Structures are given as C-alpha cells and as structure tokens.
C-alpha cells in the first residue's frame, strides 16, 4: 500500500488510495465499473486490513486469555495490542475499550447496564461499587434526539418499558439540525442519560456535542455519543469531547464486520454490572454464585473476535497514515460538490442540511414523482451503489415528511468522478420514470 504522510493533505493521491481497495476495480450490472457510494452503511476494506487478518490466522491463531502454549500467548498479545491501538485512535486508554459484536451491541451493553443494575437492586443482589448511578426509578428520564439510528432508540425504549423510566427527545428543525431551543425543556433534573448521535446517518448533520454535553453535565446525566458516522470520517477525541461513553462500529471505518467498540470512562465501566455472561468474564465461580472480572473482560464473555480486532487495528493504522483531518477535508470537498450538483437538478430535494457547515458526507435526497427505491434501482443499473429506504431512522423520516430517501455517502476513496457519475444518473431518473 501507499501511505501518505499526515502532513501532506494537499497531495490526496486518489489513484494510490483506490489501488489499496481491490473491490473498487470490479464491475457490476452489465459490466459497469463499480461506483461505491454507500459508505454510511459499510465501507470497503484495504488490502492492509485483509492481510492483517490473514496473517493472524496463518501465524498466531489461538483462543485468547486461556491456555499456556505459545500461540495462545501470541494471540492474546495481538488482541490486547489491537485494543490499545484502537483505543488510542479515539484518545482512550486500553482498559477503557470493550469489544462488542457491533455498535448496536455496544449501545445495548450500556442500556442493559441500567436495566441490570435496576433489577438487581430491586432483588437485593450485590452490585459493583458506584452502580447506583445505573439504578433507575419510575419517572427518571432518558434523552435521545429525533435523528437517532434505531440502534440508539429502540434499546432505550425497551429500557423505559422495563423500568418505568420515560423516554424524551430533542426535536429537529425542518433543515435537519438539532432544535437546541427546546433542549432546556427536555434535559432536566429528571434526566439520567443523554444518548445522541455525533453525526446523523440519514441527514449528515454533525451535532453540537459541546452544547448538549454542557446541558447534560448541569443535571449530572450520563453522556453517551453514538459515533458510528464520525469516527470513520473525522478526528474524534473522547477527552476533548468530555463524554462518558462512545460507541462505534469497525466495518464503517475500513475494518472487518463482526466487531464494534465501546469506550467508556474507567469509573463508569467499573460500576456497570455485566451484560452477556459466561466464560472469560468471571473472577470466581461456584455452583451458587459468581463474581466478575474487572473491565474490559467483564463485558467480553466467550471467545472474542480476535482476528477482527487485529484487522480493525490495521484499519486505524491506515486511517492515521492518511490523517483523519485530511480524510475529513477530502470528504468536506466531496460533500460541497455533491450538494451543489444535486441542488442544480430539477425535482431533487435534499433531506438534511443543504449548507456544508457542520455536515458530513451522507447526503439524502428525494426525487419528485419517483420513489427512492426506484431511484436506487436506476442508479444501480449504472453501477452506482446507493442506499435507499428509511436508513434505520424511521422517526426522522416521519418528522421530515418523507417515507424514505436515497442516500449517497462518499468516503476517502471516492473522487469527484464518482459523484459526476452519480449526478448524471440522478439527472436521468425523472425522464426514465416519466416524472419530468
């Protein structure tokens, strides 16, 4: 692969980068070159990540944290080195990073910490020191926003159903920004958790984290940031953001599927009861009861996803070599180009911010007279991979009065030529379906 020094942002060598991603050279549908613009759903993988996984399996594969043989030692070392590498990617400490199956599981791990603490407390069971922070009472409130992915909504709805807590949310404006004016009414002394997205997967909006965190801090709520759409695309530093927990997925940031991450402050992890229980997460077990290992092992029951962790660490290497500021700058340029191009097409309405301020590269739109599913099919026929539907953000679609959208989401290996292809295809949609 070709690594670009972090300080050479001006020399974005797109052809060298694209050469690192074998899938980008394949063709689809009638031998069309692939134009992959569905990166908000999942990213493609560079050879470096694939090689790292393969090398692990070929040389060091073993079950980690058990066994006295050399391979077990090597596998454990690679797994824990990967943890440290990935934690440092977001500015966290190694013992503050928990591996999960995906970001959805990471958010469930957090919501279940509240449920399990509440249920155990009611049953008089033993809880970790400090767990009272996770014990909910009827009338306590959980705050999310109206632009959440279902993964940061449904687990909290479930938690409220089981505990009598009340779900509240910060609304959004017609142009897809957080309605900060309503925040003071929503975040109150009753708020125990504020869990919100850093960047909307549907709208592309980058939220004002500092303002939401300030409101949450004033009332002592636990602050959780869903960073699925930010960690892959911009520099993210958990300490600078002053949050309590960060959740994200590996597969959206050039890493493998099957691995997600939870970073949380050490004192928070220490106070949380376990989520999935079984082997590897215990301290002592008798027939009557068990005690649990300290974090992060407490939250990693069973044999973990070692190869995926090794692959994700390689993805962090790749991204850091490019430089996350440079990645963000490249995407910002593409986003401006895409927004401007879409705005010039008659019958196209952008759903989400139309100006490129505090905005990521996920751009949703609707085409007058043509359903998004049909738009996506037309694009697919030109070799363009777009996402259609409600993007697991159905309430956000409802709020903005659209049943679904078509979404284009460029990433670091896309160039303006990809967007030219996409814009040309979008121009052809209404004539094809007889809507123009």
């Amino acid at each position, binding site marked *: 692969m070709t690594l670009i020094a972090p300080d050479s942002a001006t020399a974005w060598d797109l052809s060298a980068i694209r050469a690192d991603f074998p899938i980008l050279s394949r063709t689809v549908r009638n031998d069309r070159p692939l134009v992959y613009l569905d990166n908000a759903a999942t990213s493609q993988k560079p050879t470096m990540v694939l090689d790292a996984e393969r090398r692990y399996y070929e040389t060091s594969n073993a079950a980690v944290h058990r066994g006295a043989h050399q391979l077990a030692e090597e596998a454990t070392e690679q797994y824990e080195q990967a943890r440290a590498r990935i934690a440092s990617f977001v500015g966290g400490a190694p013992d503050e990073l928990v591996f999960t199956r995906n970001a959805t599981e990471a958010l469930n791990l957090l919501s279940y910490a509240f449920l399990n603490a509440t249920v155990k407390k009611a049953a008089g069971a033993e809880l970790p020191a400090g767990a009272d922070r996770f014990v909910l009472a009827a009338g306590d409130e959980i705050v999310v926003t109206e632009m959440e992915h279902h993964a940061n909504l449904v687990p909290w709805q479930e938690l409220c159903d089981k505990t009598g807590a009340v779900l509240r949310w910060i609304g959004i404006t017609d142009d897809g920004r957080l309605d900060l004016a309503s925040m003071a009414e929503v975040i109150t002394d009753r708020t125990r958790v504020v869990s919100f997205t850093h960047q909307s997967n549907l709208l592309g909006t980058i939220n004002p984290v500092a303002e939401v965190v300030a409101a949450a801090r004033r009332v002592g709520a636990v602050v959780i940031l869903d960073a699925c759409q930010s960690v892959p695309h911009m520099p993210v530093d958990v300490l600078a953001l002053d949050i309590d927990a960060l959740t994200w997925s590996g597969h959206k940031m050039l890493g493998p599927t099957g691995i997600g991450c939870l970073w949380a402050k050490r004192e928070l992890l220490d106070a949380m009861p376990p989520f999935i229980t079984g082997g590897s997460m215990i301290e002592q077990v008798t027939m009557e009861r068990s005690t649990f290992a300290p974090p992060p092992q407490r939250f990693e029951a069973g044999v973990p996803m070692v190869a995926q962790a090794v692959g994700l660490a390689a993805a962090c290497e790749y991204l850091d070599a490019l430089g996350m500021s440079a990645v963000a700058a490249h995407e910002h340029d593409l986003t401006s180009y895409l927004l401007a191009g879409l705005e010039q097409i008659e019958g196209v309405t952008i759903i989400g911010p139309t100006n490129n301020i505090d905005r990521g590269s996920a751009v949703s739109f609707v085409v007058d007279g043509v359903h998004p*599913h049909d738009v996506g099919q037309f694009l697919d026929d030109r070799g363009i991979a777009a996402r*259609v539907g*409600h993007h697991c953000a159905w309430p956000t679609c409802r709020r903005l009065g659209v*049943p679904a959208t078509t979404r284009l989401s460029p990433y670091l290996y896309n160039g303006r030529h990809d967007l030219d292809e996409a814009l040309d295809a979008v121009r052809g949609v209404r004539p094809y379906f007889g809507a123009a």
Partner: protein
Amino acid sequence: MDLNSLYQQIILDHYKNPVGKGLREPFDVSVHHVNPTCGDELDVRVHLVENDGVTTVDDISYDGQGCSISQASASVMYELLQGQELTEALAIEGAFHEMISSRGTIEPDEEVLGDAVAFAGVSKYPARVKCALLAWMAFKDAVVQTQSASSLFSSHDAPNGEEATT
C-alpha cells in the same frame, strides 16, 4: 440484465394510474402490511361473499405508499382477483408468488397471470421481491383472517367491518 425488463411499461402505467385504489366498504377484514426494510406501507381490505357454497372475492380495496413495483403490483392484483371465485384467486396468488420467487427460472403462464407476467423481471432482482409481494401477502393474510373469523360465526353474521392489524 436490463432495467427495462424490470420496469416494463405496464408496471409504470399501473404505478401512475392505479386501478381500484382507495379503501372501500363493506369489508370483512382490513390488514396493514409494511416492508420494514424500505418503509413501504399498504392497507388491504377484503370482502368475501358466499352464494350457494361458492365464495367470491366481492371486493379488494387498498391504499398505501411505496415504490413503483409495490404499488403497481397492488393495482394488477386488484384487476386480476376482483370478482374471482376465492379458490381461483388463491390459485392466481400462488402462481404469482411462485413466479416472483423463481429467480427468473419459471416461465409465467399468461393465461393465469394476465398483466402480472410483467413482474417476471422482478424475480431477477432479489431485493425487489418483497416489494412485488407486499399486496399479495396482505391479500392472503386478509383472506385467512376472514375465514378464521367467519368459522366462529355463521356466514350470515360474519363480523363486517372488524379491524384486524398485523
């Protein structure tokens, strides 16, 4: 594959000018079906009438929103099944389901399926199969619910207008 094999003119025509759209009375059962992957929603009402032991589909009414495939499919279904004997309507439904699920391996029988043969191209696009089936699955569900409800009553006091949601 060619996009025109998916979007045949007859499908686009039904999409733009759907036949029999709009919810009507009387009906036996009303069902609400959604395609959770794309957000398409469809209400389907069925009214069955029994005469001399023969059950006929007296009316299928529908309303909803979705892509051209799901909406045109509902319209074609109305044209094909409205007024049919129930056994014949279910046979057509079966033939349609078989064609759509065939990945392009079944040559559809135009005698049975009429305009619905235009959907044969959909079977080559696995992601669109659910779109084409949405209305038909709702119809089948409504018939099953109507029959299980009417088996609890005599045919004369079947619970007209009862709402059922799935």
